């Protein structure tokens, strides 16, 4: 769930609303937190830059429940055809 954003100099100049400086490069990563999905911005070397977006997670299962469901799958005998 990560997106890589890299703006080149031309795009910055064309936009007209940015200050002139080095191009901004970052990745976004979505983390589920309780009933929310937090999109955070990280520098390319993994440093936290900021929060880009907070969304309601439409899948209302908690992380704990999801893990639990996955574990049932691990503890199943393979199907015999």
């Amino acid at each position: 769930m990560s997106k890589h954003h890299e703006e080149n100099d031309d795009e910055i100049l064309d936009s007209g609303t940015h200050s002139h400086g080095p191009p901004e490069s970052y990745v976004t990563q979505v983390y589920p937190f309780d009933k929310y999905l937090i999109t955070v911005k990280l520098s390319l070397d993994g440093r936290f830059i900021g929060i880009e977006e907070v969304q309601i997670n439409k899948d209302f299962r908690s992380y704990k429940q999801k893990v639990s469901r996955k574990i049932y799958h691990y503890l199943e005998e393979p199907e015999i055809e």
Partner: protein
Amino acid sequence: MFYTDVTEQRLRFGDVLKGYLSTTPTIIEPFAERNEAYNIDVRLPDFCVVMDPCCQIGGGSISLTPLIQVRSYFWDVPYFFEDITRINRVMSPRLAIHPHKWNELTSQEKMELINATPQHGYLRFFVYEENDAFPPYNVSRDLRYEEKIDRADQLPTYEERREKLEFQTKYYMIDFKSVHHLNCKKISRPDKPLDSKIQNSKILQLSIRTRNELRDKMSFYYGNPPDEDRTDV
């Protein structure tokens, strides 16, 4: 104690019985008309287990499931090899997963299992402890799994070794998916005198503790909602 020393003069949930037919109908697809091909497999298993709750036994009918050999898959799991009846109770997912499956997990998935709380697994199955009433059968496995630490992530891993393992066992199991229904007028309610033929067909009775374990696991089998039926609110 897995079984009671003395069996009661009535049928109970989980009892091991002898002399009851097992039937399995098979169809190719749902019938569009009345006279399509089908097959009904009728067998006389060595033993069947009573699947009705104690208070629902009677009225000339009963739900049963055949006692079957323990699936050889389970003997590969060291945690079960030590005590195969661990299948019946909440188990550590880390220890209960098949070694081959464990080796296919990512480091993150392994950590999830290591940190997971004990829970029921292999929901369909319940193991019956070995008993002199049961005939022994052979188990043969070709691979042996030895636990080691993976140098890359410092997590456990299993080394597969080709090594023949053969032994005899009298452990059996039931599969909740194989429950079938049978009519017999001699099957009466627990509060009525039991017919002598029915009494003679009763081979073993579970102890209260084991019957509670069977009840717990079967309740969990039916009471475990699928993802789409789960809600947090």
